[in-house]
């Protein structure tokens, strides 16, 4: 089965993250990496490909640095990469991103892909909407947020867990599927994988290559706009309860005051 995995290059959540002058996420002056939640989608694709025949193609839409996300996926074992790189994409929101991805996925798969895998959400935007939007644009069924997945008889079946219940969902292939961080344990790039990735093909496409009109994407045509932002307030000093024989009472009083008990 030929699988396309959509991955995102995001600012490292452990480093300082900032905004640019135009109130978009600063993706240039920060350390970036393959969104950790997308590693689960890459891993799932590799497992499926290893179990049968087929190829795994990773697609990313992003600035120069996004090539790093592709490289990481190739080091893990994906076969080839596609990087959609175009200055006009800067500032795109989820609808615009899904538009570009849809064209890139079609072109990468040479028509219709058999399976598109995606992560639960990006670790920067954390919107979780792109899989659904992409499915709509591709005219394919979607099953999102799976914590287990099986392919058989031309169908994809999986489990979506929520606090209240677990649903078993099924869709005919081809389909767009997003997976959670419960589905597997992503592998580390092996040394062989790291060396092999050097020789794997990566294509870079512009909007023109995909036949996407630059006017449909970018900051100007985004449906939402960031007006202003403030840094998260520093964490407040906690209250230290010293136990002088009455620690339990003090703790209970504190919890009661905070209306926690």
């Amino acid at each position: 089965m030929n699988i396309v995995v959509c991955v995102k290059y995001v600012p490292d959540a452990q480093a300082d993250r900032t905004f640019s002058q135009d109130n978009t996420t600063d993706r240039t002056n920060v350390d970036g990496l393959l969104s950790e939640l997308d590693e689960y989608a890459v891993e799932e694709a590799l497992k499926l490909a290893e179990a049968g025949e087929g190829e795994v193609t990773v697609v990313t839409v992003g600035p120069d640095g996004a090539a790093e996300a592709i490289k990481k996926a190739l080091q893990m074992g994906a076969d080839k990469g596609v990087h959609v790189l175009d200055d006009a994409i800067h500032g795109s929101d989820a609808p615009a991103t899904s538009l570009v991805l849809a064209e890139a996925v079609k072109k990468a798969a040479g028509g219709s892909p058999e399976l598109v895998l995606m992560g639960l959400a990006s670790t920067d935007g954390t919107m979780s909407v792109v899989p659904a939007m992409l499915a709509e644009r591709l005219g394919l069924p979607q099953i999102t947020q799976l914590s287990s997945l099986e392919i058989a008889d031309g169908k994809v079946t999986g489990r979506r867990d929520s606090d209240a219940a677990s649903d078993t969902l099924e869709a005919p292939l081809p389909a767009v599927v997003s997976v959670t961080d419960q589905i597997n344990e992503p592998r580390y790039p092996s040394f062989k994988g790291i060396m092999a990735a050097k020789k794997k093909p990566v294509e870079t496409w512009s909007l023109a290559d995909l036949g996407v009109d630059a006017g449909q994407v970018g900051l100007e045509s985004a449906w939402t706009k960031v007006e202003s932002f403030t840094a998260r307030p520093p964490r407040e000093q906690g209250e230290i309860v010293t136990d002088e024989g009455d620690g339990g009472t003090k703790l209970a009083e504190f919890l009661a005051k905070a209306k926690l008990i």
Partner: protein
Amino acid sequence: MTDIWLTPERVALRDAVTRFTKKHIAPQLSQWEDDGAIPRELHRTMAESGYLGVGFAEEVGGSGGDIIDVSIVAEAIIQAGGSSGLIACLFTHGIAIPHIVASGNTDLIDRYARPTLAGELIGSLGVTEPGGGSDVAAVRTRAVRDGDNYLVTGSKMFITSGVRSDFVTTLVRTGGDGHDGLSLLVIDKGLPGFSVSQPLRKMGWHCSDTAELTFDNTPVPASQLVGGEGEGFVAVMRQFVNERINLAVHGYAVAQRALDLATEYARTRETFGRPIIDRQAIRHKLVKMHRRVAESRALTRSVIERAAAGEEPIADACLAKNSAVEACDYVVDEAVQIFGGAGYLRESEVERHYRDSRILGIGGGTNEILDDLAAKLLGYSSGGKR
């Protein structure tokens, strides 16, 4: 010119091993220190991720890569919260199987090298004896030919991973006195007359099990011979260059880690109303520690680069190891000092590095032996030429 230590592939390797260590090693290390051993499972996990076989060719079951890559793996493990002792027991194959691989004996390679690099078997190297380790040519363990077997009698001391290992690449005397009477035999655990001591109790390297092994007329098939009879000493000496380089990497990498831990501590620890890093006495300590790390790393890496290019830098490997050992001893001592009372407690990482480091100047050739070897090779003797 691009730094060969910073190629994109090596940056990725360091990053991957760092993540592996933070997840699969660092959180459990204290427990393994208490247990006195690491679990077998770790060998498999490490092999599955493809880091156990770095430095060994794919043809023998390794992952490829050279001694620079091996050094990057060790640096990354230590910097991410691993330890010298952890590497000693997890990578014991680094001293146990190179002779097997170098001999080109495909039968031994298939039975020992391949499964070890896959994390299925654990190997160890038996050279040192209770009677002495420095004088390798004086090995007394005898192997007497008896039909298709050798009958092995004697004992081996301080054998890393000796408690857990499935086989021991053992230096034995098949011939007369002197180094050309020595041969290497791969001896399986469980053979008659082969007994293993309780784990030896040590100052450091607690997670690394160490044993005394005894052979009493142990029958070892002659097919277990690595290379030819009489070739053991040279094979062991050849690999010593790599072992010394690897221990030098432990030295500067542990020193770097201890420096980083001490620096972080000094930034946050306040006395008399100010962080102690603001005191000249502490700052100068840190900068001297930094200098020692930088010096020993630069020297060691230059030797590693020459080894990677195919040279056999015997004398310089001695200098590098002794330099890194000295740097490490100095830096871990100062790091404990900067931590004050906290540095004396088991729960501080620097305390472990302090104990673990003491072996570096003893194993793989003591400081004195390496100085002596370097002196000879560099011509510092009455008959020598310089």
